[in-house]
């Protein structure tokens, strides 16, 4: 008998794979994409942080079970990789981390400390201590607009501002479309990392009220040193297939910035700034009947 499957750490994985047209199934215990001609392509699902399923894919129950068991996030995406739905929870959403995150988010003082830390990371330096969140947001907005303009100037095109209509894909200009594709890639791996570390994507600090609020918070910490320059560089080159070019360039940028190694430690650093210790289980709580085995993976993963 083979030993049971366990997830490996996010930092050891390939960031993303986009799959289109075919049926995802399990054959001989391997995750395979079978196309209508019967061509089988094995996907090393345990070595991928996030699988982006494009229109034209079907997934069997067994495939979802296997993806969950090895801790690979399945995200259903639409045209150009912009997310439609997501499912499959690679982490175990352990209660201790969830309670910690919820406690930080609900304690107004702790939340502000986390928000401030997030802005410090974005500004790469301390932020004025007397500034309110509104003021920080204003500063950040100005910085972001300036960065867009600077990057557009660097790559030699005119930037007309960030605008996109998620309901009509072709409406944006090329830089905006490249940017949407690139951020979708970043959201995919950030969601995989948030879940792998055992946190809830919905409990955000800067963002709130969306199913992926915390994912947007985390992605924003990395956006301008990874995917934004990539998207602008690709847009300036005006390639034949911009989406593919964006994904290739994002992959290089994720590797060069060692993003997968940095996401989970950064999440922990940011939450630690809240100044609240990870809560201990209450004395009267029952211990799990079957103790958890230490796996190979990140702390939140279901082993």
């Amino acid at each position, binding site marked *: 008998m083979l030993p049971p499957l366990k997830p490996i750490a996010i930092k050891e994985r390939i960031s993303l794979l*986009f799959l289109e047209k075919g049926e995802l199934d399990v054959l001989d215990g391997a995750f395979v994409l079978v196309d209508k001609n019967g061509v089988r392509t094995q996907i090393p699902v345990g070595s991928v942080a996030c699988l982006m399923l494009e229109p034209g894919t079907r997934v069997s129950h067994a495939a979802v079970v296997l993806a969950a068991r090895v801790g690979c996030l399945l995200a259903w995406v639409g045209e150009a990789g912009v997310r439609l739905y997501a499912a499959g929870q690679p982490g175990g959403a352990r209660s201790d981390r969830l309670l910690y995150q919820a406690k930080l988010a609900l304690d107004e003082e702790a939340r502000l400390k986390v928000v401030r830390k997030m802005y410090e990371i974005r500004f790469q330096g301390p932020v004025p201590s007397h500034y309110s969140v509104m003021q920080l947001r204003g500063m950040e907005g100005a910085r972001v607009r300036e960065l867009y303009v600077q990057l557009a100037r660097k790559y030699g095109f005119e930037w007309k501002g960030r605008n996109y209509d998620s309901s009509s894909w072709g409406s944006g200009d090329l830089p905006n479309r490249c940017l949407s594709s690139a951020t979708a890639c970043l959201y995919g791996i950030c969601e995989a990392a948030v879940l792998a570390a055992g946190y809830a994507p919905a409990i955000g600090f800067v963002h709130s009220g969306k199913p992926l609020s915390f994912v947007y918070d985390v992605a924003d910490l990395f956006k301008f040193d990874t995917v934004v320059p990539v998207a602008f560089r690709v847009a300036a080159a005006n390639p034949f297939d911009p989406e593919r070019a964006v994904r290739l360039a994002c992959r*290089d940028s994720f590797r060069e910035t060692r993003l997968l190694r940095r996401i989970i430690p950064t999440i922990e650093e940011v939450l630690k700034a809240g100044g609240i210790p990870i809560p201990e289980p209450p004395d009267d709580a029952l211990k799990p009947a079957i103790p958890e085995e230490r796996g190979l993976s990140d702390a939140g993963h279901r082993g």
Partner: protein
Amino acid sequence: MLVIVVEAAPPRLRGRLAVWLLEVHAGVYVGDLSVKVREMIWQQVVAGIEDGSAVMAWSTNTEQGYDFTTIGKNRRVPLELDGVKLVSFLPATGGGSTGVITDEGEEDGIGCGSFDAPE
């Protein structure tokens, strides 16, 4: 790290590969050589493989961490997905002269046949 696996290769090619690499298993050669030497060895494989097939994989500085190349007829063909290389396994075409279709099929000489392989 460099790995070459040959199948149905002439003995002279296998001997030649053993000049630079260690044959750790029948037809499986490993080594750790520079890009230049790797390309030289692959040229030798291309020149000497005849009706056999071979694959060479090596460590490289991509997100995947390795790359590979193949030569000769095989039901496994490389497939590139946005910068990650995977392998597609083509279905048996049923046109094999032996009439026996095994799961693997490589040794039966069931090649790509009339099947349109993806790029």
